């Protein structure tokens, strides 16, 4: 196609609604995943490892960890939805082809997929927040702000993953992205321990990664404080998301509309 920038419109909504309807049909296993996985991590690492760690940044380890788990879950949920599920809809199921025969464009589909995967991150963040509140490790009403931020974080990571989906020839290709990009972020962006624990070069590198900024936003909000550089953190997430969405749209157009 000649034009290169996506033309977002409200036409993403039917795509999102379709995915929500499927999710509702399969919501029980989804909810088990949303609650179960992070709960297990939180209990095992928070209490198990926390006993040896004691406090971190002046708070019990499980409190420190809960906010990190919200971020990594938001990243993982959106990433896997936008890799595996979106790829299935693009290829084997031909769901996108059906949409393209209706008054929907690639731009609408990619935006719908992005916001949908972000929505799934919102679900999983909500689940963890409920569990953390139940454990009494959430402080202050500002913790509710975690929810819209989780939606933004998920949307950002979904757009990034869709770039990979758009160029993938098979499911195996996703291993590169998950192992080389997603897993390092989960380990080095402050989910499990503060960035101060890293050697300076790694620390500076981590500052460029979106998950670092997700943690910078969500951790203070869940523990009764306020983010120190909210504007910077939000800008990084929005920037990664917007650039990735543009690239993903251009790549999917090239792939499907050639």
């Amino acid at each position: 196609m000649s034009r290169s920038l996506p033309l977002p419109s409200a036409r993403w909504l039917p795509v999102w609604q379709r995915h929500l309807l499927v999710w509702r049909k399969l919501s029980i296993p989804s909810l088990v995943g949303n609650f179960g996985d992070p709960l297990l991590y939180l209990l095992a690492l928070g209490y198990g490892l926390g006993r040896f760690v004691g406090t971190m940044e002046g708070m019990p380890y499980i409190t420190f960890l809960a906010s990190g788990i919200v971020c990594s879950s938001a990243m993982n949920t959106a990433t896997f939805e936008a890799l595996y599920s979106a790829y299935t809809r693009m290829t084997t199921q031909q769901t996108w082809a059906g949409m393209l025969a209706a008054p929907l464009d690639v731009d609408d589909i990619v935006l719908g997929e992005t916001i949908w995967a972000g929505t799934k991150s919102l679900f999983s963040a909500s689940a963890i927040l409920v569990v953390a509140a139940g454990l009494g490790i959430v402080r202050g009403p500002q913790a509710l702000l975690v929810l819209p931020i989780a939606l933004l974080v998920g949307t950002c990571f979904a757009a990034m993953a869709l770039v990979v989906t758009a160029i993938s020839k098979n499911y195996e290709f996703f291993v590169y992205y998950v192992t080389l990009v997603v897993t390092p972020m989960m380990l080095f962006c402050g989910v499990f321990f503060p960035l101060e624990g890293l050697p300076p070069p790694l620390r500076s590198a981590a500052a460029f990664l979106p998950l670092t900024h997700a943690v910078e936003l969500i951790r203070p909000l869940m523990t009764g404080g306020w983010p120190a550089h909210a504007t910077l953190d939000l800008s990084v997430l929005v920037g990664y998301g917007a650039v990735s969405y543009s690239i993903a749209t251009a790549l999917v157009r090239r792939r499907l509309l050639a």
Partner: protein
Amino acid sequence: MTLLARAVVILNPIMSQRNGGAVVAASGLTKIYDGRPVVDAIDLSVDRGECFGILGPNGAGKTTTLRMLIGLTPPSAGNLEVLGFPIPDRARLMRRHIGVVPQGDNLDPDFTVIENLSVYGRYFDLRKSETASRIPELLAFAALESKASAAIHTLSGGMRRRLILARALINQPDLLVLDEPTTGLDPQARQLIWQRLRSLLGQGKTLILTTNYMEEAERLCDRLVIMDHGRILVSGRPQDLVREHVEPQVLEVYGPGVERWLEDRGRALCGRTEQVGETAFCYAGNASALLEDLRNRPELNFLHRPANLEDVFVKLTGRELRDG
């Protein structure tokens, strides 16, 4: 866009149809892949209410032509208007008014029969109540009333095909674009689809279809084109094409010694002959001399039939196998 410009964009197509404009008007339509023209400067004009066929061997450019028509791939050159909308610029708007039956099965496996219809209605911004009121009629049309809540994987090939056709009608389209609508179906299922397509023509809808089945084209199409190597070889009404391009009578002769018979007698007795495998095709204006000769040769079997579209197709596109 200003309000006035928007009104012009929306009204233009409606007005041009009022004036008897063509449903599809394409000139010099071209698609080039890797420097090779897959569709090579074709002209098409499809009238309101007709069934228009696009025929051709595999790789002739049929599907690419359809993809351009519905705005799924931009033409490399040429002008294209569908329902008065310039394509690809206004393709999304145009697709509100058409239905598409794809070659493959892209029903939503996560949904039931009814859900497939209602979710597809959402893609057209139809209100829930609007879709719900159309669904019973569509289920009846597809003869799937008893399967309303069935999962997609429990449907037979014919049922899926009918559901895809019903789904393409959810927005009450003026134009239906069908890519090989009956490929892979058994004869009974095919007959049912044909009957449904004819009833849609009776409602005044316009149909554009590609097919590999000459019988399908001959029965359904008012006009058709035969394409090969991206070009249109001929266009016209099926019966006219048969009359213009092949002799009216055909004898298919087979059996031991058919080659020798063809050399000794066959070629002399009929206007044109072709040998394919172990069968000799003899085309003649008057077959009585041939029939007379063959009655004296009990070792040879033969079938005497009027010429049909398949004879035209084979004459124009050759008999070699296309695996493209």
